[in-house]
């Protein structure tokens, strides 16, 4: 196998010295982490490496020598470097050499234990792969490889391939802590040797996050204790709370905030990303909500909205009345059964009359109610959207009632028809065996059964028409509510922090690596540049999606059509924890 030497780009202009890094025997590759400069005392270098090995559980060792030749060739240095191989024994011993100001590199490997055989790897069989140490250190591979066992020493079999390189660099942070301004005994050259990177804002935030988290965790625990008290478990309140999507959204947000401000540190990178995504999502939500609030409360928009609401409700009721008058006549030229038509029509008209009286009763209070609901926008845009969805549900409650009446009537009719149709054919439904059996009926049973069957068949068009009309209206309302829920879901689950990271720091989220072949001369080792291949946007969203409320329609189109045909009630937005009907 070709020997691969991973060399950091920051060390290509460093002075001559020793190469320090990790040797991965399964892939025949050497990951160079830093260069130790002259002068040094071998004992101190060995001590430093032992310290780093203990702190990071990475098998750091001296891999070879690095020679950066200046203008005048230094022969003595060459011999000295070769002699170092005897002090720090490593198998194989690498000797990298670069001529100053040129792109010509040379790399020799010597094996001490194995005698040189005729087909030993020569200079052609070494590959130099340059990598950006800082980017490889900070990046995270997707899909994440299995975490190495922290109890065991080196991570050997668990990280395969190039993930081993990423893993080595990421875990060797202890080696990168000293820079050239330190008064240490050993001078190292790596990505942080010009000065350790740190940010004042990040450090301050880290210091402040402890007390802030404690404070918020305490407040949130008070709120959740208040919401879990016995009053809310009593029947009317618990029923209403389970139906309103506002309560569901508030509960979801409370859970998320509790998770963000929990005093436990995040265990691994994915939990940290989840926390960050949730925090950014909550902040954006609140920002959008405050914008909406400022828009609503300016220029008396709430007053205008309240003034427009009652006429809109009136208009809806009037249109429904016209619709019912049309159904009571001869709708689309169909001939209805007069008596049933009149009964159903009058029944629904009375409902509408009740509803309109109720709206008119409420009209003086509407502006106040809307003003207070508008204040809820400071909790977030999602809460306002949920309130809007609930208001639509309440305003169209009469449509929902009509749908339920129509569906129940239709369902009864269909049940009756199917059972009497079986009687007509001389069969019966066996409840015990759950199948259709033949049965011999008496003459009077057959007579009454056929009579009822005929009645039901002739009344079918009327009931079916009412059912159709009200189901369509109900589906329209459900579609509008569904669109609002979709928007709320989108705001809830979009991982904005991950998307922002992908946009601004694409090397942090990597899907893999890509190689570029650098200038090559025959006889010299092959030089490659390894760059990070960032994760595509759709995979970022897919990997870091936040869990949403889970209010997805549970039916497929086929089962929906079946339910509509048989008149069973549809509940498209089942919340979590609801019992199935």
């Amino acid at each position: 196998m070709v020997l691969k030497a991973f060399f950091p780009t920051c060390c290509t202009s460093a002075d001559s010295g020793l190469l320090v890094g990790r040797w991965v025997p399964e892939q025949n590759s050497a990951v160079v982490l830093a260069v130790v400069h002259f002068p040094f005392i071998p004992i101190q270098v060995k001590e430093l490496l032992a310290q780093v090995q203990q702190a990071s559980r990475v098998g750091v060792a001296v891999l070879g020598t690095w020679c950066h030749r200046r203008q005048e060739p230094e022969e003595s240095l060459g011999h000295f470097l070769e002699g170092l191989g005897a002090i720090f024994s490593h198998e194989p011993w690498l000797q990298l050499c670069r001529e100053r100001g040129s792109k010509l590199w040379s790399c020799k490997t010597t094996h001490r234990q194995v005698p040189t055989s005729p087909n030993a790897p020569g200079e052609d069989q070494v590959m130099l792969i340059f990598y950006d140490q800082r980017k490889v250190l900070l990046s995270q591979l997707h899909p994440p490889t299995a975490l190495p066992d922290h109890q065991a020493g080196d991570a050997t079999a668990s990280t395969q391939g190039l993930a081993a390189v990423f893993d080595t660099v990421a875990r060797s942070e202890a080696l990168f802590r000293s820079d050239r301004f330190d008064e240490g005994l050993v001078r190292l050259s790596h990505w942080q040797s010009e000065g350790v990177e740190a940010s004042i804002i990040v450090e301050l935030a880290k210091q402040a996050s402890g007390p802030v988290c404690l404070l918020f965790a305490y407040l949130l625990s008070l709120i959740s204790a208040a919401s879990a008290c016995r009053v809310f478990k009593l029947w009317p309140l618990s029923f209403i709370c389970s139906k309103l999507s506002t309560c569901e959204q508030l509960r979801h947000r409370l859970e998320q905030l509790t998770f963000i401000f929990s005093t436990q540190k995040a265990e691994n990178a994915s939990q940290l990303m989840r926390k960050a995504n949730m925090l950014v999502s909550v902040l954006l939500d609140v920002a959008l909500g405050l914008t909406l609030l400022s828009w609503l409360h300016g220029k008396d928009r709430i007053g205008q909205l309240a003034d427009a609401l009652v006429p809109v409700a009136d208009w809806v009721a009037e249109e429904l009345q016209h619709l019912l008058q049309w159904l009571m006549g001869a709708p689309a030229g169909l001939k209805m059964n007069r008596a049933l038509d009149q009964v159903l029509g009058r029944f629904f008209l009375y409902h509408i009359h009740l509803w309109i009286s109720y709206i008119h009763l409420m009209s003086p209070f509407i502006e106040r109610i809307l003003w207070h609901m508008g204040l809820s926008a400071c909790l977030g845009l999602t809460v306002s959207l949920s309130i809007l969805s609930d208001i639509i549900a309440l305003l169209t409650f009469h449509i929902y009632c009509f749908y339920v009446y129509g569906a129940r009537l239709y369902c009864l009719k269909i049940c009756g028809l199917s059972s009497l149709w079986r009687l007509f054919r001389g069969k019966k439904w066996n409840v015990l065996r759950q199948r259709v059996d033949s049965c011999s009926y008496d003459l009077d049973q057959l007579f009454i059964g056929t009579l009822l069957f005929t009645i039901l068949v002739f009344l079918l068009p009327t009931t079916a028409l009412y059912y159709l009309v009200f189901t369509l209206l109900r589906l329209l309302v459900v579609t509008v509510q569904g669109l609002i829920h979709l928007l709320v879901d989108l705001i809830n689950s979009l991982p904005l922090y991950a998307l922002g990271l992908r946009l601004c720091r694409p090397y942090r989220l990597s899907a893999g690596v890509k190689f570029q072949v650098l200038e090559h001369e025959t006889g010299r080792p092959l030089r490659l540049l390894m760059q990070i291949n960032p994760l595509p946007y759709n995979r970022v969203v897919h990997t870091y999606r936040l869990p949403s409320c889970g209010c997805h329609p549970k039916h497929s189109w086929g089962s929906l059509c079946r339910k509509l045909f048989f008149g069973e009630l549809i509940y498209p937005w089942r919340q979590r924890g609801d019992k199935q009907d």
Partner: protein
Amino acid sequence: MEDELSFSDIYGGRLALLRRYYSPSCREFCLSCPRLSLRSLTAVTCSVWLAAYGLFTLCENSMILSAAIFITLIGLLGYLHFVKIDQETLLIIDSLGIQMTSSYASGKESTTFIEMGKVKDVIINEAIYMQKVIYYLCILLNDPMEPNGISQVVPVFQSAKPRLDCLIEVYRSCQEILAHGKATPTSP
């Protein structure tokens, strides 16, 4: 060292294969697809604008014309950035892996790298494509569960679609490198 050969794709268009031999363990194959032809671009633009002008004479709304120009521009930019692939490159490095790069007409490049440990073999396979039977080169990936199984088949040169003679050239070089990798044992 590099050399250029001329082949044709399954539709008869001209393809140029550029081979670069960097070292016995590293080779690169670069297939350039035929460029966007001026004729087809003019034809599409003219038809869109004629249709827009026809609608304009019916509706007398000048927004249709501006919308048509806008749509043509956005459509062309989208086509160049997301659809039209100019060049496809296959870089095979012994004991590291195989890298496939597609460069689009707008300059965007999309790269996939497969590590050598996952590569089982490189083969030429047949497929039924519309009314033709075509050959395509593909990389077989190992299945970690089953030692003799294949987890995925990754086709190469999907938008260039070269014919068998070009594929045989690439196949021979890839097999040389793969055999070279398998023959040399891991050094102690």
